[in-house]
């Protein structure tokens, strides 16, 4: 009986049937509805005041705004709020999450000891000297004593999470105190308010999230199209790209106050600050298309202190998952009013090249989707950079190959023409050995230069093949069994042509022809064009990177490696040291060691990468032996020995 009466009272207060939360789009609509609840509470309990303080987590966390009150002079103005740590009865309720009921506040001083026993830590610092306006409101004549004031307040919670509190005060002239039953009723009202408020917040967050994602997807599609166009044109302006990504972050994460991109490689910081001042209507503001106008942003470059990068590194060291966004804010902390900070790694091919740093305003927390959006932006930027660098590298390789090719081709043409002129106009006889030798020398130079051109051209072909098809296949017409005489011819011509190209500092090639005789007894199949290419590359490297007055040895031998039998061609030289850690890098496209960079004026850095693929296509491998203590560095071309 008692229960049904209570339910009926609540229904009366909350105006059942249930409120359709989804119909409330703005905070004004929900607060108007909650004010009606406060009025009904006041009417039911005959209160002079009923006020509702709730945390609006969409705006500020850990602050309890006055959402609704029956005070007439409040007039729905915003800005009244209850700091969490406020002293007094309301602060006590929030802090302790317990309801409180005081029969007569005017007797507070008298009953303080008993009250403190029941409500540990409670305090009431007001002096009860009411302002004239309040006395007027309470219809208390001047000079009259304070009428009995009864007070009760109940925390508003949902799923054990504190959302705020509701408080009532009655000041009837005859003794009239709130009863325990009324406190129980207010607790039920508070539960209902908590559910309504939470549902409303959740609904707004869901709507906001949907809107944000829709906006994000649309903007990212637009950005993708622009980046793709720029990459195709080869005209990516990295600064513009960073600005566009930051604009997108600002556009998609409504709490973002300032954003920056900090790169580890370029030692540059790219920062952007939306010029909008955060305000309560931010949540409902229309999306500003900074991608197109760019006028709402300030874009700053400065030397980077890499603080954000360091922060991420530090958090990684402390055990959080590497390469994941780090939320450095303390928005989870109830005692903080800080909006928080996100640091999102930018990875290019599994290597962190920088971070996107996003900071929320002083009080606004990030919505739950902010970290996910930021993470996606970090991944997207990493992808753009990766694509762009790959495209740039590809263009650079072709450009380098063109320059490498232009020089020998020009020389071949000019030397051939000059030779022809000499033969035509010189008064010479075929028996004139001096002239014949002169012509022979020049023809050898021509072959040497032409070999260089051929090597570059084949590199270009392999590079194109691998870039388009992703793999290299042997040309069946060029494949055949390798005999010692063929190996000897290819290697001898190769090193002799290389010798002609070498400068004055003297590198001596030693060829061990006998070591190839074994090829008559075992069966090794090779693509002759690719074999020549691989050999030329190793000889060219030996020539370029050997120290003056040293030897280069060329030999062949057999080896069993990982239970497989190979015949290998070895080129050993004495030059820059190669460590075991550098070996993998040497086979990467575009890699050149720091010493190698200093002694070559040109080159594309794809030589060993090509050789590695050539050997892979043979079912063999390029083996690089680190420099020995005697200074020998060895490169081996391992070809599988076939069963007869």
């Amino acid at each position, binding site marked *: 009986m008692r229960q049904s009466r209570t339910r009926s009272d609540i229904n009366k207060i909350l105006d059942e049937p249930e409120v359709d939360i989804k119909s409330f789009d703005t905070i004004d609509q929900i607060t108007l509805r909650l004010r009606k609840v406060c009025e009904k509470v006041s009417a039911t309990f005959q209160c002079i005041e009923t006020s509702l303080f709730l945390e609006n987590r969409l705006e500020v966390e850990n602050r309890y705004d006055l959402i609704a009150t029956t005070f007439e002079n409040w007039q729905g103005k915003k800005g009244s709020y209850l700091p969490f740590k406020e002293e007094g009865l309301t602060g006590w309720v929030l802090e302790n999450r317990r309801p409180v009921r005081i029969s007569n506040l005017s007797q507070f001083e008298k009953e303080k000891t008993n009250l403190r026993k029941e409500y540990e830590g409670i305090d009431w610092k007001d002096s009860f000297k009411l302002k004239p306006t309040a006395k007027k409101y309470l219809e208390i004549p001047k000079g009259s004593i304070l009428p009995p004031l009864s007070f009760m307040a109940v925390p508003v919670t949902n799923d054990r999470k504190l959302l705020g509190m509701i408080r009532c005060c009655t000041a009837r002239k005859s003794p009239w105190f709130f009863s325990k039953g009324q406190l129980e009723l207010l607790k039920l009202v508070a539960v209902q308010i908590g559910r309504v408020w939470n549902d409303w917040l959740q609904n707004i967050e869901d709507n906001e999230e949907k809107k944000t994602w829709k906006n994000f997807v649309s903007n990212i599609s637009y950005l993708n199209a622009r980046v793709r166009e720029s990459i195709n044109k080869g005209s990516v302006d990295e600064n513009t790209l960073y600005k566009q990504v930051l604009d997108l972050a600002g556009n998609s994460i409504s709490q973002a106050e300032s954003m920056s991109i900090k790169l580890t490689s370029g030692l540059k910081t790219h920062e952007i600050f939306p010029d909008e001042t955060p305000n309560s209507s931010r949540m409902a503001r229309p999306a500003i298309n900074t991608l197109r106008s760019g006028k709402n942003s300030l874009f700053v470059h400065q030397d980077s202190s890499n603080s954000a990068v360091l922060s991420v590194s530090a958090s990684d060291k402390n055990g959080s998952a590497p390469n994941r966004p780090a939320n450095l804010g303390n928005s989870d902390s109830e005692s903080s009013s800080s909006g928080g900070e996100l640091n999102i790694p930018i990875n290019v091919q599994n290597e962190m090249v920088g971070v996107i740093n996003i900071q929320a305003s002083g009080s606004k927390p990030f919505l739950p989707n902010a970290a996910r959006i930021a993470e996606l932006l970090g991944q997207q930027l990493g992808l753009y950079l990766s694509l762009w660098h790959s495209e740039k590298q590809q263009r650079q390789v072709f450009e380098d190959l063109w320059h490498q090719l232009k020089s020998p081709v020009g*020389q071949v*043409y*000019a030397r051939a023409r000059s030779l022809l002129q000499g033969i035509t106009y010189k008064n010479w006889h075929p028996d004139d050995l001096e002239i014949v030798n002169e012509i022979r020398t020049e023809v050898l130079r021509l072959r040497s230069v032409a070999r260089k051109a051929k090597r570059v051209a084949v590199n270009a072909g392999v590079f194109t093949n691998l870039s388009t098809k992703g793999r290299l296949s042997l040309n069946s017409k060029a494949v055949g069994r390798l005999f010692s005489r063929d190996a000897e011819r290819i290697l001898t011509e190769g090193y002799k042509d290389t010798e002609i190209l070498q*400068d004055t500092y003297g590198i001596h090639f030693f060829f061990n022809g006998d070591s190839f005789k074994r090829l008559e007894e075992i069966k090794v199949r090779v693509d002759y064009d690719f074999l020549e290419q691989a050999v030329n590359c190793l000889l060219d490297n030996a020539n*370029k990177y*050997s120290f*003056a007055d040293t030897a280069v040895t060329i030999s062949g031998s057999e080896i069993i490696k990982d239970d497989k039998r190979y015949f290998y061609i070895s080129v050993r030289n004495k030059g820059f040291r190669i460590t075991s850690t550098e070996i993998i890098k040497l086979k990467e496209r575009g890699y050149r060691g720091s*010493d190698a960079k*200093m002694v070559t004026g040109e080159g594309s850095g794809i030589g060993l990468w090509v050789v590695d693929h050539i050997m892979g296509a043979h079912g063999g491998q390029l083996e690089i032996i680190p420099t020995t203590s005697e200074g020998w560095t060895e490169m081996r071309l391992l070809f599988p020995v076939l069963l007869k």
Partner: protein
Amino acid sequence: MDGDEAALPRFIKITMKILIVEDDKLQFDFINNAFSRIWAPDKPEIDRISTESDFRKKFHEIAVTNPDLIIMDVMVRWADPSPNIPVPPPEIVEQGFYRAGLRCVKMLAENEMTKNIPVIIYSVLDKSDMEDEIPNLPNVKYLDKDFDPENLKKAISSILQP
């Protein structure tokens, strides 16, 4: 021939001094031979520098010798391979070793003693790729390295007798 040279006794022969900054031996040989034909029978005195570090080391010498012409390759290596490579200054490491020749031209242009030496930038790189890096001076010309002695001859004539 200017007034001073005209005043010299006839038996003193003025030999042109040409410095070729080129790291490729065969290309140097080619240019050298082309010069022999251009100035035949009076072959000029040719010096060669093959690395950027050597150019820097010999810069004072270049300023004093004051060659009549410098043929400058662009993609010149920093040094020859050796266990003790001269350590490049940090700014060069940062810029990279790719266009060393242009740095050498800049050095010449910025020095009072060398800024008027005629320089031909002889490169396979397109002029448009390095337009911003070539000093805008009347004595600095670009010539595409097409190995045509006639083009080289024309470029030399235009820079020595503007």
